């Protein structure tokens, strides 16, 4: 079983490849018959980061504006987020500021965000340079990777880096997993909480030795 459970979000404009990133991450292959996500979809995977098993609970949100009212309700209590744009579409890049504002406002101030410039394989159609995006990432204190859900390049890396940063922050004390809405749970505690009434949660967290 896992040592930690992190709640993750995948956000960004429609058609940037969010669902494909998630699919590639979980299934290790490219889903080429993808359809619009309706509302949200859920995925989960356990990864090993610096000798800890971390279970990621990932909410893949719909990028379309019409679903915003539904998807926003999933931001609360997210520990990490993949903010995705499409390197072949400047429009999706320009929308990043809005997504970022939403995430910081609705999730939590401490949310760890990694910027993903997806469709790296379509370099010929590129509209956003690596340099420009990495500057944006720096200014906004984001991690940054260019990914390809098609080839799988940097996909696992994105999730792992984000999780590693969260772990680091926990170790340095910058993040407190026990704070409400941190989006982090201890593995054992998480399991116990799922099997017992919510009240037991606080106690089990204290019992946990990790």
């Amino acid at each position: 079983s896992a040592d930690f459970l992190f709640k993750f979000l995948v956000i960004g404009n429609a058609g940037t490849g969010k669902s494909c990133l998630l699919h590639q991450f979980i299934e290790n292959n490219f889903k080429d018959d993808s359809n619009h996500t309706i509302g949200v979809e859920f995925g989960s995977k356990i990864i090993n980061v610096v000798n800890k098993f971390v279970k990621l609970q990932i909410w893949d949100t719909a990028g379309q504006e019409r679903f915003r009212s539904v998807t926003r309700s999933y931001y609360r209590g997210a520990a990490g987020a993949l903010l995705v744009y499409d390197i072949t579409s400047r429009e999706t890049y320009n929308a990043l500021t809005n997504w970022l504002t939403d995430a910081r406002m609705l999730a939590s101030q401490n949310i760890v965000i990694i910027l993903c410039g997806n469709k790296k394989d379509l370099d010929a159609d590129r509209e956003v340079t690596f340099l420009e995006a990495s500057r944006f990432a720096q200014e906004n204190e984001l991690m940054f990777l260019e990914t390809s859900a098609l080839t799988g390049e940097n996909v696992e890396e994105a999730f792992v880096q984000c999780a590693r940063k969260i772990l680091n922050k926990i170790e340095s004390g910058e993040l407190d997993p026990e704070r409400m809405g941190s989006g982090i749970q201890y593995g054992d505690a998480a399991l116990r909480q799922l099997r017992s009434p919510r009240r037991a949660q606080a106690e089990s967290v204290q019992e946990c030795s990790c």
Partner: protein
Amino acid sequence: SLQPIYGARYPPVDPRVLCSLLKDTPKTHAVSVRSKKPATFHEFARSTNDAWDIDDEEDDGGFFTATHSTPVPVQSHPSGEAPRLKEASRLTDTEPEPRSGDRAQPGSTEISQEHLNTDSELCNGRVVKSSSDVQLNSNTERSTLQKQQSLPLRPIIPLVARISDQNASGAPPMTVREKTRLDKFRLLLASSNTNLEDLRKHSWSGIPREVRPITWRLLSKRKENVGVTHKQLYTNISDLLLSFFCRYLREFCLSGRFDIQPAAMCRESTTSSRPSSSSSFPTSHLLTSVHRFNLRLLSLSLSLSLSLSFSLSRSLSLALSLSLFFSKEDVENFEMAALPLETQRNIEADSFWCMSKLLDGIQDNYTFAQPGIQKKVKALEELISRIDEDVHLHFQKFEVEYLQFAFRWMNNLLMRELPLRCTIRVWDTYQAESEGFSHFHLYVCAAFLIKWRKEILSMMDFQGLLMLLQNLPTIHWGNEEVGLLLAEAYRLKYMFADAPRHYKR
């Protein structure tokens, strides 16, 4: 000898054998079958009869339905959409169209039955042949084009076969019961002034595919048209449509509601219609022409209902037009553009009528913040808490919210949860119900959820529950399952709709 392979429905496999096979094979079966190396092609084909429907759903995905990040076996092999569609178009060159029954005289049923039999036999031979050679094509294509894994040999279900077969559902081409039903429909439709009430009554339990186009048209007909003969209705429809369109366009312009929303919508529709990757986009003649045609239809529907979701309307209209289109008697060729302009307009108009009827009453599903959906999800929650407390409490215990899975059920009218043939069958009933799409759907959703109660109650964590609810294994569903589902939904409606407080806790 050749074993025809287009869908679990059609082949002359004994339906009982097939049923038991399907019932004994939960989703894990598909995986194990795939991992085993089949000794012969036929063996493989037989053992994966049930796998067809996976694609059924998936493939439609490109156009109609499913997708999602289903990390269940279903998704473990992205389906080669392009090759299959190509197959469909090739078929169209050879396969005779099913005869539409709308002009049939009551006395002529014998003859048309004969026609039907010969037709299906003919199809049999041809489909087998073409699906196997295309299979080779698609294999080479696939191995070179895409990084496909698993399945070394995967026969293809022709789109046509799947669509025209939705009523067969694992049964042999036609049973006595089905024939009687068809005769009944033909009798009803043959009269110059069809009694719509009778037609509705009969449609509730499913419409034979031969007469579906005309029946849908009649059922979605507006009141003012009652009494008009089929032919009049048919010729009037295009003009009506045009005036309809103009009126809406004018109204929206005048009301100044052409603000951000439609603009965003158009952008969305253009981005979605743009092929996202060349391999996944159907390049076949058929699909591009149908696609083009549907875009036109869509521009109408977008104007009609400003906030209608693009992908939804695309799915709906494509499903509608295909089902109307594929059983028309006067269409020999599938090339849409080659059809006389008038025929194209007629099909378009028919689809549009059905669609506007369909959207009647569910417009608030697609307006800002989607209040209709929110309301229905709440209603579903309340209904479940009354009819199956165990499931309801189980969800509460693991903090699963109804919105997390039922949002899509409402938004897409279960299109992504059921194979296309089932969706069409469900719509037969929705058309026959007075408020099928707006009201009855809720009870269908409730019945659908309860159908999985055993699986739900056996899941002991949040992840498991959500993964299950997101990917319910309906791939092998046919008429029988849908029939049961609808019957259960009717029972619920009967119990609760007219006495909303009766069972309130």
